[in-house]
């Protein structure tokens, strides 16, 4: 019910589009080197108040280093970090307005759940009654009321995760940092917890920064995602922008499944671009305008669900349409993914999905069927890098 009231607000929550908005967290040309290794490379980033922001990337891409610099466990080699307008240089972790939820949870094993949650509050010399009230509130928020007296080793993984969250939130931080928070949970619990995290974030209106390697997790919870690679941000945008209009081959390939087709620009106009894709043996017409010049090689990136697959092969290849042979079928329950071989000389395959809208008794398409693959003018994006 709270969800309904907040729902529309979330959709219009786009402070990053407002050039006058002041960022809440700002990385200014931050570089971090460990010896010869550059973990974060001259990186600038703005995160706004109340935003749920995700740093997404493979291991060693620098995302955890970013978070640890924000928490104060690492000092940037160059550049500066601002939280709420205040330069964090020289501010020790225990004085920063950010609290972190650790990947290992880092619960104090010799303290009860309540004592763990109260730990940060005690450091602030809060009165006993206030601490008790706040602990109770946190236990309620994370649905741990029945477990306050237990020690961490008496809890399940999911419960420990919630204690870690409650402990990090207890001090009402301006920023909550989540380091791979759901990595240790099984899939079902992870999905549930993702929605719980979103609800908690909506309720508290705190800025959340999550570090994750799981793209589904990032796409589910975050308002905006920064995809990182080798210490740089490859793209920073909303989940749908990242998915639908990746700006590079790396991002397109990293997020979800995608067909990457090598093509050469034949002609371009205000109406769109026409490319020649010899590997799949057809022309591609896209509604996208491009800055690349005619004759240049580009990549046309197209999600499998944007590709239609129909039984029966076209005689002559047309624009945005090609004949193929079904080579592999992956049945995933909700959808089936078809790998279809296109062209004779070389093994090039295109992936397409079909949603299994009815119970599948007999496959409408099966191995070695000749099929036609086709797509619309808005199906993909043209990538030049």
């Amino acid at each position, binding site marked *: 019910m709270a969800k309904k009231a907040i729902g529309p607000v979330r959709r219009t929550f786009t402070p990053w589009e407002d050039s006058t908005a002041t960022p809440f967290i700002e990385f200014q040309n931050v570089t971090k080197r460990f010896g010869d290794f550059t973990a974060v490379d001259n990186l600038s980033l703005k995160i706004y108040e109340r935003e749920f922001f995700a740093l997404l990337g493979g291991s060693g891409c620098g995302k955890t280093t970013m978070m640890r610099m924000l*928490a104060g466990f690492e000092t940037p080699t160059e550049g500066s970090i601002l939280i709420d307008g205040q330069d964090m240089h020289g501010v*020790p972790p225990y004085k920063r307005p950010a*609290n*972190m939820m650790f990947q290992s949870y*880092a619960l104090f*094993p010799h303290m009860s759940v309540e004592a763990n949650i109260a730990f*940060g509050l005690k*450091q602030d010399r809060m009165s006993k009654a206030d601490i008790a009230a706040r602990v109770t509130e946190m236990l309620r928020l994370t649905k741990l009321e029945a477990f306050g007296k237990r020690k961490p080793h008496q809890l399940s993984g999911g419960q420990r995760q919630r204690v870690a969250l409650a402990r990090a939130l207890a001090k009402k931080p301006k920023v909550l940092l989540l380091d791979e928070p759901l990595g240790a949970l099984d899939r079902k619990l992870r999905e549930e917890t993702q929605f719980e995290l979103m609800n908690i974030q909506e309720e508290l209106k705190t800025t959340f920064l999550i570090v994750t390697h799981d793209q589904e997790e990032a796409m589910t919870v975050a308002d905006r995602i920064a995809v990182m690679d080798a210490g740089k941000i490859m793209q920073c945008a909303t989940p749908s922008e990242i998915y639908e209009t990746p700006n590079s081959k790396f991002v397109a390939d990293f997020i979800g499944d995608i067909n990457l087709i090598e093509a050469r620009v034949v002609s371009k106009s205000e109406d769109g671009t026409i490319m020649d894709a010899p590997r799949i043996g057809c022309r591609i017409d896209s509604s996208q305008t491009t800055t690349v010049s005619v004759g240049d090689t580009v990549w046309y990136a197209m999600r499998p669900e944007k590709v239609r697959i129909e039984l029966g092969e076209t005689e002559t290849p047309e624009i945005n349409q090609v004949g193929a042979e079904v080579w592999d079928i992956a049945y995933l329950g909700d959808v089936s993914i078809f790998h279809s071989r296109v062209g004779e000389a070389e093994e090039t395959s295109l992936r397409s999905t079909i949603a299994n809208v009815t119970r599948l008794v007999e496959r409408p398409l099966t191995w070695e069927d000749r099929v036609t693959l086709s797509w619309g003018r808005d199906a993909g994006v043209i990538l030049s890098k």
Partner: protein
Amino acid sequence: MSQTQTKPRRSLGAKALIAAPYLWLLVFFLAPFLIVLKISLSEVAVAMPPYVPTFDLASGWSAFVEKLSDLSFENYIWLTEDDLYWKSYISSVVIAGISTFITLLVGYPIAYGMARSPKAWRPTLLMLIILPFWTSFLIRVYAWIGILKNEGLLNQLLLWVGVIDQPLVILNTNTAVYIGIVYSYLPFLVLPLYASLEKLDDSLLEAAEDLGCPSWKAFWKITFPLSIPGMIAGCFLVFIPAVGEFVIPDLLGGSNTLMIGKTLWVEFFSNRDWPVSSAVAVLLLLLLVIPIVLFQNYQQKMQEKQA
């Protein structure tokens, strides 16, 4: 949380494997103990061995039973009558207790420093802790005489530096005994303590700091309480052998250093009273059983907690 578990059935081979150490204990611990116990119930005599009765298998069963009635608790009663023994026991416990505490004060920073040192250094540091074991214990204690005596290395150094103008009398005092015990038993405290400090997750300290706790405070709130099991294990490992220590008080202590190990030695070799010294030994064992049982109970509890 105690759960009743059905014990897994063991094969014959497994039983034999378990039996081997028990058999070893039976032969090499229980049998000698029974002999000492028997001697402690005997009477001193000018003979070889210097006590009666002596059992021999040749005289048959009836003689054995007859001689059994000659055994008495007289020696134990004697121990309660002469206050030398009680004083020795208490003094041993006090000296061992003080030494253990000093060892803890010295050993904790060492173990902590080792656990916080770069990973590459740790094997070397561990090696340095274990290194003294490669030399005879006796020789190492003798070496301390050379250091602590009036014209020894320590006094020479202090006189040369000018801190003192009269040599300090350390050798043959209780201070020398403390130094000897702390030095000799330090590794036994450092090793278990290091083990418990080393496995401490760094992210716990980061979490504490993140929650507003400066690092010196995080030490007392996180590191220290979590190292208590290692501390207790180390303290027992120092305290238990220190109570019965003989070599150190004999070589470094003075004539007024009372320790039960020394008293036992005097009874045995100087007075040649085997029965009384055996009684002292049996009582010493009983005295030490209490901390040992406490220690075992504690370890078991910790293991259950971890499981």
